[in-house]
């Protein structure tokens, strides 16, 4: 079993999709727009998040195109500023934050703990509408002429000196914040109160643990961002000086409020992705994740530590040396739980029998790229280095390694892993493996040169740069093109598979989670009867044993 692929599809001649499932039991647009089914809402998110991802991606393309030459010749500098601002805002608030939790989490969290739905289905739908409203505001900003503060809204720049559409963007982000608060709240309550009998905390899949930790961050951090944004908006309209030093305000206050959210936000973005990786790793290594408890607790530890390191974004902004030192040390501490996870995944693979399905390839990509991103983060966390590297392309490369190399890889791993469950169909295997490889190559070609650029001193956020940086920039742009192809491919073959893909059956990966025990696509109620859980998660030994038994039984 271990050497060959584990996908065992039902016989093509006879296989059909289940007659009734969540996709076809009601018809019409309204049945989608008014649905309270967490699976359908997950699909709504999946579609809208993908849409915004490609909008953000278009801006990435424009940025890279402009940086092909040293002069600002494609667009003027202020247009360039709008490009990277839009790119950042769309990618962070409309893609990264909701991607795994709102799309995959919505679909899977209730099923994986044996519940029929999230605790508050209507609030769940509401949070999708809030998300879409936020998206509309962002698109409106675009049509109105854009905003150029950068996604960080640094004051007093954003409050007094820029005459672009800060207000519409701020309102959009405020609304997006509530969407994410409600998602987090729904998850926490569901995980606490709606687990099936026998689903104890330490039998929960690690995907649930990581979404739980991310939800804590959403619930505690997002309101602080919301209030910071409200203050920016009020300051801007009323012309007061909470943040404006010329009027007695303090720009550092904004920085504190903003980063109190936005540092933990990077964990909101990465933790659910780590959960996906745990699921994929254990399934394709046929083993329980090594050190399950440590991995589970490290999620919560990351979440808690995450709240104490925000000022590492402010080393050069005038926090005192003493507090900078403390924050620098605390930052190093957060690396520990992340490292725990990496080591545990490595041990999981080491003792398991690995197969290289597409989700596993993406997961490998995640581990490689996230590790590089994490290590360079330690560089940036150390005080002396940061002063040299901050606001250069080194930072850009670092956060793209973590967020794009990390989270996006995890998202794609998850989409491929659960695609058969979500749609009931498989995707073409060789094409999907090709896409994973193209993405990985394209990614490295795009962002590795940026570490060098940053080290050599190329500052971020400028449309022009000294001519000697051109070669590396051309490399980076070429890589971005390859990367773009890597992202387009899944769009095409996954769409194709909806109609022509092979029928997947209930459990194509022979995985153990509850979601694999029900039909694909699932029924609206998920389970006919509430399941009773008697085993720990990822009990592959039991599964192999059982399958052996079944074979002899049949023979």
């Amino acid at each position: 079993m271990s050497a060959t692929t584990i996908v065992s599809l039902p016989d093509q001649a006879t296989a059909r999709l289940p007659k009734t499932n969540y996709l076809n039991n009601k018809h019409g647009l309204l049945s989608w727009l008014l649905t309270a089914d967490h699976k359908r809402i997950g699909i709504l998110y999946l579609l809208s998040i993908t849409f915004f991802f490609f909008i953000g991606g278009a801006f990435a393309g424009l940025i890279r195109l402009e940086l092909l030459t040293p002069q600002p010749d494609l667009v003027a500098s202020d247009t360039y500023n709008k490009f990277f601002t839009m790119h950042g805002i769309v990618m962070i608030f409309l893609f990264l934050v909701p991607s795994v939790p709102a799309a995959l989490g919505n679909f899977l969290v209730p099923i994986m703990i044996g519940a029929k739905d999230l605790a508050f289905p209507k609030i769940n739908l509401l949070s999708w509408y809030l998300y879409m409203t936020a998206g509309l505001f962002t698109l409106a900003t675009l049509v109105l002429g854009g905003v150029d503060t950068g996604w960080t809204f640094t004051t007093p720049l954003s409050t007094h000196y820029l005459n672009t559409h800060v207000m519409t963007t701020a309102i959009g982000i405020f609304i997006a914040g509530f969407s994410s608060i409600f998602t987090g709240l729904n998850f926490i309550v569901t995980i606490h109160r709606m687990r099936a009998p026998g689903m104890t905390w330490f039998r929960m899949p690690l995907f649930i643990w990581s979404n739980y930790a991310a939800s804590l961050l959403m619930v505690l951090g997002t309101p602080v961002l919301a209030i910071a944004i409200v203050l920016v908006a009020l300051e801007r309209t009323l012309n007061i000086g909470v943040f404006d030093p010329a009027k007695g305000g303090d720009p550092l206050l904004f920085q504190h409020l903003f980063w109190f959210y936005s540092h933990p936000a990077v964990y909101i973005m990465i933790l659910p992705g780590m959960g996906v990786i745990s699921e994929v790793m254990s399934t394709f290594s046929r083993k329980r994740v090594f050190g399950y408890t440590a991995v589970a607790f490290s999620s919560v530890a990351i979440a808690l530590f995450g709240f104490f390191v925000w000022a590492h974004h402010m080393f050069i902004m005038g926090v005192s040396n003493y507090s900078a030192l403390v924050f620098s040390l605390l930052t190093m501490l957060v690396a520990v739980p992340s490292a725990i996870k990496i080591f545990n995944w490595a041990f999981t693979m080491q003792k398991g029998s690995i197969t290289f399905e597409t989700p596993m390839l993406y997961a490998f990509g995640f581990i490689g790229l996230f590790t590089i991103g994490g290590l360079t983060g330690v560089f940036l966390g150390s005080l002396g280095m940061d002063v040299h590297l901050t606001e250069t392309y080194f930072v850009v490369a670092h956060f793209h390694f973590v967020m794009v190399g990390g989270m996006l890889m995890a998202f794609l791993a998850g989409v491929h892993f659960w695609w058969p469950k979500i749609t009931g169909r498989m995707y073409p295997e060789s094409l999907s493996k090709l896409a994973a490889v193209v993405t990985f190559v394209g990614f490295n070609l795009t962002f590795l040169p940026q570490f060098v650029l940053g080290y050599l001193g190329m500052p971020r956020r400028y449309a022009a740069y000294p001519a000697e940086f051109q070669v590396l920039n051309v490399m980076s742009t070429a890589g971005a093109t390859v990367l773009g192809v890597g992202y387009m491919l899944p769009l095409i073959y996954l769409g194709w598979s909806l109609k022509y893909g092979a029928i997947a059956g209930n459990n194509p990966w022979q995985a153990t989670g509850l979601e694999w025990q029900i039909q694909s696509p699932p029924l609206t109620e998920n389970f006919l009867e509430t399941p009773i859980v008697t085993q720990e998660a990822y009990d592959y030994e039991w599964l192999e044993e059982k399958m052996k038994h079944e074979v002899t039984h049949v023979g």
Partner: protein
Amino acid sequence: MANANPTATHETLVHDAHDVHEHHDLPQLRHHFETEEQQREAGSFGMWLFLLTEIMFFGGLFMAYLLYRNWYYPAFATASNQLNVPLGTINTAILISSGFFMALGVWAAEVRKKNVLVLMLVLTTVFGYAFLNVKYFEYKEKWEKHHIPGATFDISEFVNPPIDAKTGKPTEEPLAPDMAQKTQLFFFLYFAMTGMHALHMIIGLVLLLWLIYRANRGEFTEGYVAPIENFGLYWHFVDIVWLFLFPLLYLINRHPLK
């Protein structure tokens, strides 16, 4: 994994699907909960979590207030003397009464007294409305004195405080012009914080009207009290925020310079 029966065919799954909607004892039990108890616990846990996010939300404002109060102490002390303490005190009393009626309302729902519940909800609403009314007069006063931050804010009164007729001395310690400018920050935070609080009250009042309508139809006095309980939590939260705002904005160190 035990019960979910991996070997079941699609046909059996689909066949059984019709029986799922059975076992509903109470009309209010939503389909995805197992028991009434579970639904009630989920609801109140959700409410507590939501209030936690609210604390974080107000927390940012409190932090800003405490920070600036520390920095621009004279301006903040002088500016806070401009707040109308009698009106604030009256409002505190009004709000506490409103909270008291709300608590009685929860009790009435639990012991299934429909008319008492409706009465209590109405009283809660009336007192809540009265609070906002008083707030309106306070805001109006600020408007007339040019204490609204923004374009027409006037600091002259803080630079040259009015002379007390009896003693012939200024009623307040005069502030240097740049410090007097900082009073604007005080008023900004005053409006931001009390405004945010008032916004919560307005939302609460709208919800109350809806609850009164439903309570009047007898929805909450048949054993299904969760909405009343959860709204009670919200309303008490709004009370408590005010109990922090009032001393912080109106009371502490009113006349530090005398």
